[in-house]
């Protein structure tokens, strides 16, 4: 056991000294890993943020029910009651015509609204549903149509559908890009390690000739790979952290233009840990595979 640890310690020292001896190559590997991992990480950040926004949106209306302008208080109560009984409906929001008018006024130009004397808007219910199932929604709409006092019903959900489709498209492409980039990284690191084994081919040959096992020979390369991953991961999270801070600072400065409700949520800290671990894993796996292949293939006496 002590022997085993000592072995690994020696291999680590060896790998570390190779890392230092090729410091140029090492730094470039770390930068490559760092920048490459930035992309999917930034994607993760976007998804996390977009996810929150879309969750907030979920609570907003999906069906608008406009009532007759001449509707009575009793009728409104009755409609409210029948809506509340319906299990498809998650949330009900009643908007009296006065409030709706005020909102419209604040949206339209003052000049315009001030010239309108009487409120042209009706009372309305805005409800959100548990389902996106077209058939169920259609049934609900049909049943609403029959109720007295309801003037018209509009399904507002389309733009949320659009947003959701858009989001899931983005999510999909981020995962796709992430997978692609991780493969690229595996290949790049693996190839770098392979080229490195070639530059150490004399040492590998001699070591084999005097009785070193393949495991012994390949261990330092694996530590080099892990170090690449560690460095690269640290670069990634540094860039990410700085970007979030920088972006938010900019957004605050630009608040007058964009409004200050857009603030980037930072990733939870454990995500940063995950990124570093992922990077190290990538370094380990690619160096393991490529060193193994390369060392096994290297014929002794060549």
């Amino acid at each position, binding site marked *: 056991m002590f*022997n085993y640890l000592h072995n690994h310690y*020696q291999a680590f020292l060896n790998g570390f000294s190779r890392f230092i001896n090729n410091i140029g190559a090492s730094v470039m590997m770390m930068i490559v890993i760092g920048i490459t991992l930035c992309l999917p990480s930034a994607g993760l950040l976007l998804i996390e943020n977009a996810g929150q926004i879309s969750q907030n949106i979920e609570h907003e209306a999906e069906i608008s029910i406009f009532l007759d302008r001449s509707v009575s208080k009793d009728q409104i109560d009755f409609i409210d009651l029948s809506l509340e009984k319906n299990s498809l409906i998650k949330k009900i929001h009643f908007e009296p015509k006065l409030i709706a008018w005020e909102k419209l006024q604040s949206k339209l130009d003052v000049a315009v609204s001030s010239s309108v004397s009487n409120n042209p808007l009706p009372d309305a219910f805005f409800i959100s549903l548990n389902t996106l199932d077209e058939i169920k929604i259609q049934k609900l709409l049909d049943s609403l149509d029959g109720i007295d006092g309801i003037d018209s019903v509009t399904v507002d959900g389309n733009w949320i559908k659009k947003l959701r489709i858009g989001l899931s498209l983005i999510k999909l492409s981020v995962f796709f890009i992430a997978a692609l980039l991780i493969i690229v990284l595996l290949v790049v690191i693996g190839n770098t390690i392979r080229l490195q084994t070639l530059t150490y081919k*004399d*040492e590998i040959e001699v070591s084999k000739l*005097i*009785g070193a096992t393949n495991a012994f020979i390949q261990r330092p390369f694996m530590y080099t790979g892990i170090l690449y991953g560690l460095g690269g991961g640290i670069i990634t999270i540094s860039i990410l952290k700085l970007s979030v801070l920088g972006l938010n600072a900019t957004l605050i400065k630009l608040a007058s233009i964009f409004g200050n409700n857009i603030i980037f949520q930072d990733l939870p800290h454990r995500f940063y840990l995950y990124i570093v671990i992922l990077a190290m894993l990538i370094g380990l796996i690619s160096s393991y595979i490529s060193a193994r292949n390369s060392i096994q293939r290297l014929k*002794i006496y060549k």
Partner: protein
Amino acid sequence: MITFEKVCKSYPGSPEILQNINLEILSGELVFVTGPSGAGKTTLLKLISAIEKPSSGSIIFESQNLSRIKDREIPILRRRFGMIFQDHKLLYDRNCFANVALPLEINNMSLSDMNRRVRAALDKVDLLKKEKMMPITLSGGEQQRLAIARAIVSRPSILIADEPTANLDKEYAEEIMNIFYSFQQVGVTVIISTHELPSTKINFKRLQLNGGSIQNLIGHVQLPS
């Protein structure tokens, strides 16, 4: 200790180098393998150290059949050998000390033991003063001696040397031979390929390989003392 039974060896795409070799090397013997260039001396040594496998026949090393040895058993076998290669095979990106230390590193030896053993080996070949130098700065003969130090540092039970004195003048060649003798004295089996037999008085066995790849086995020879 080592027995060849009807061993043949040919490389792909070339005629047979060794044909139907039978020989026995006893533990503690000093053996010279001689023969003209291209006769197969190096090939014979490679067969013993399991670098090459015979085309047919069997090589028995301490009841282990080297013609059927598994890849993962080879490292364990090799650690018992001290090998000196015709082209030295030094590592030119490590200094002399680190070159000699390599077999001990592989054996996972502690640093202090390593220091002591490496220095002793370097001293034996008269290179202790150059321990910090890189092999590339050594003369041809010094490199050869360095290779010898690396072979003996792990106190192998068999020493296999391929023309270890090729680059050395007479004086140094004799010194090196003396090192081999002293190892033989303490029970190490020593197998040396050479194209020039030593002029010292000593018991040895000579394996003469003829260009035609037929082997003449000449028994123990006592040089006039």
